[in-house]
């Protein structure tokens, strides 16, 4: 069975500090991977997707970047956090286009 693990569960960070959120998928090779973000009271927005190692496409520009260093790993990062980065970040995977998407448990980020 496939499992998706996100870390950390929650984080409080200062404005201007760096950020790195991680996501690992086990039990599935070459998944399509996604990062989503939801501001408090807002709608879930797709940030990035990746269909293969080393290839990441940006959907929404939020002064964030993503990387896929390994087939089963997706990293979301920035060198300088903004207050507007606060929210709930979700990693997701699926087998391929036109199949069900499965989400991780998310990371709640508070920027102060």
């Amino acid at each position, binding site marked *: 069975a496939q499992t998706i693990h996100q870390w950390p569960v929650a984080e409080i960070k200062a404005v201007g500090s760096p950020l790195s959120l991680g996501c690992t998928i086990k039990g599935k090779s070459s998944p*399509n991977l*996604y990062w*989503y973000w939801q501001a408090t009271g807002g*709608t*879930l*927005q*797709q940030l990035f*997707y990746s*269909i293969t190692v080393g290839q990441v*496409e940006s*959907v929404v520009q939020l002064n964030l970047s993503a990387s896929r260093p390994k087939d089963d790993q997706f990293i979301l990062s920035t060198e300088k956090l903004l207050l507007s980065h606060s929210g*709930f970040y*979700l990693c997701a995977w699926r087998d391929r*286009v*036109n*199949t*069900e*998407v*499965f*989400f*991780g*448990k*998310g990371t*709640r980020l508070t920027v102060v």
Partner: protein
Amino acid sequence: GDQVEQSPSALSLHEGTGSALRCNFTTTMRAVQWFRKNSRGSLINLFYLASGTKENGRLKSAFDSKERYSTLHIRDAQLEDSGTYFCAAEGGTGGYKVVFGSGTRLLVSP
């Protein structure tokens, strides 16, 4: 760009009653997925449809790509059904893009 309009934004039901949630799409979508958000914020998969209808217990979902909508019907609502429900659609202009609706906050009361 692709848009998903979800309604209602909030819904109150008494136990045992039912209702429907709806998502309208501004463009033709290939598939739709419905989720319930739990108390921690995690998204629980309910349905994935590329066409037609699916049913699971007291929940039933339909997707009409041509008419650009999807529905989620809840019957015999129970207290534990309370939560926020989202639809998410894929297709339209971006092959890998999945667009979420704004959610329906459901409250089931005794």
